[in-house]
């Protein structure tokens, strides 16, 4: 019973991690940008949710559209300032990693200067509540955030599968040149998917704000966790990210329950190294340079 309990808690967290990493893998798939600034966008969303809750008493779940809008605008500005300049260059992929690294440092510095590095968490009424099903208890905060994450990821999947723009995004991520040949406005698709990814980060941030306690410097830890999910899922595959997030966070919560909570994040990093050792290009991914 204890094991089932642990697995269910792990799954709930896993879907939140999956939502956090989805935007990242979307951006990588379409634009070949490894956005190290993604976790700090999540934090911006979390801060937006926190202040909406503290000042206006707004429920973080209903604040999701506002948080997503905040990070989407921030993402659009970042894109215009930083990434548009040399999208065609040879070493674009490596350059952008450092560029996003710098962006993350700038945003981290700004956030820590404005809000200081103290622990924060939003506390809507359901954050401390739990539902009992037999012997298994489900904290409502994690249940809600897990369910909303699944809903958002499924929504994104449907959008990518059926809408015209979604098909254009998938085509671009398969081959930039060929997408351009069949008349897709690749430039617009790139901006759109970057902004969409950032909006997803904001939505995830709003959910994160009542699941984890957060502070500006926390995003360095998330970078490694989210990146391990993206690498494991095969750089650019959304389904891969969801599956690897579910598996790894169940493993992490088992480690946390049976060994020690402090070692649980180790699972993600070790998984990343083992993955690089065994299959450098991911479980579900195609060969990418």
């Amino acid at each position, binding site marked *: 019973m204890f094991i089932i309990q642990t697995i269910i808690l792990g799954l709930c967290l896993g879907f939140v991690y999956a939502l956090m990493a989805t935007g990242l893998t979307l951006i990588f798939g379409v634009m070949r940008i490894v956005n190290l600034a993604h976790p700090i966008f999540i934090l911006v969303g979390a801060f937006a949710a926190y202040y909406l809750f503290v000042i206006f008493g707004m429920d973080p779940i209903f604040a999701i559209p506002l948080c997503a809008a905040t990070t989407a605008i921030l993402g659009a500005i970042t894109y215009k300032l930083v990434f548009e300049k040399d999208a065609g260059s040879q070493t674009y*992929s490596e350059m952008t990693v450092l560029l996003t690294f710098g962006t993350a440092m700038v945003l981290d510095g700004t956030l820590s200067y404005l809000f200081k590095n103290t622990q924060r968490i939003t506390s809507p009424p359901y954050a401390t509540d739990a539902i009992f099903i037999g012997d298994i208890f489900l904290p409502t905060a994690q249940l809600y955030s897990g369910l909303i994450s699944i809903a958002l990821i499924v929504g994104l999947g449907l959008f990518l599968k059926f809408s015209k723009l979604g098909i254009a995004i998938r085509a671009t991520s398969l081959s930039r040149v060929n997408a351009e040949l069949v008349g897709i406005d690749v430039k617009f698709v790139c901006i759109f998917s970057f902004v969409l990814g950032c909006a997803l980060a904001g939505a995830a941030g709003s959910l994160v704000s009542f699941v984890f306690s957060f502070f500006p410097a926390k995003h360095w830890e998330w970078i490694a966790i989210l990146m391990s999910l993206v690498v494991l899922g095969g750089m650019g595959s959304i389904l891969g990210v969801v599956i690897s997030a579910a598996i790894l966070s169940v493993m992490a919560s088992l480690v946390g329950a049976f060994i020690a909570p402090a070692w649980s994040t180790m699972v993600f990093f070790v998984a990343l190294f083992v993955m690089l050792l065994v299959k450098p290009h991911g479980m579900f991914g195609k060969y990418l340079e």
Partner: protein
Amino acid sequence: MDSRKIIPITTLVILLFFPLIQFFPSVFGDQNYVIHLMLYAFYYMVMTSSWNIIGGYGGFISVGHNAFLCIGAYIAGYYSIMWGVSPFYLILLAGIGAGIFGFFVGLITLRVKGPSFIISSIALIMILRIIFDRWELVGGASGITLPYNSLSVEFSKFPHYYGFLALAIITIYMNWYVRHSKFGLALRAISHDEIRSAVAGINVKYIKVTAFVLSTFFIGCAGAIWADYLTYVRPNIFLIILIAANVVLMVILGGMGTVTGPIVGTIIFIAFNELILSYLGATELNLLFTGLLLVITLLYFPNGIVGTLKNKGKLPRFLDWG
């Protein structure tokens, strides 16, 4: 004598005798802080020059190189307490330990290139942070405390000054040597195209891993001296991403894949950092400006100062070492 050697050799002689002004406080005043800044610059030069071997020539950009700094510092700190000797005697041991660790890490992470490699280097810091925070043998999160050296205050920085100076000279020489050797040629070929280099008869894996070990060895040595200088070794001092970010920024600012780039970048960055510190204080704004500088450099001078000047043919001869 080659005219371009005059300025570097003069600088070296001045640097060798500079700390002696501490013997004449009545003339020069107490210059301990200047000495601190200079040894700090040498310390970063060791890191940037050795980073340049794998990052600049090899094209493997690691933002987790302070992991090896930490390993070196912990080896020197732990054994100096256990055996009761100064970490200065353990510099080689620390370097070799970091090199062995680097060998195994390199075997794993050098299999991938580009973004995946950068991510794995971040993950390396995170793993070590978790391990060292909980490893009771080396003091857990509070780390190891080392004794102060017995010199009086005015002269207490002398061993570290000369230690770092010597290490910086060796590392810069190594950097120059790699740039002009067959080994470095192979390394630069690998950074352009691994498969073609392998076809041309280069033992890609051997070259990559050797370069990585070489670069981690010197960083480990620097860690030993830095541990003695700080008199404590603690995970939250050595295993923060800002150190690695500074190293990467310095090299890019100066010019990746050049011999003098890391030196120029280090001096300019430390001067810039001092300006920010003296005008704005040690706040989080420091992080903001470091990031801003990184973004601006990457967007407008991706070749760095030395690289840009060289492309324009305006590089002063004393900086032109390849």
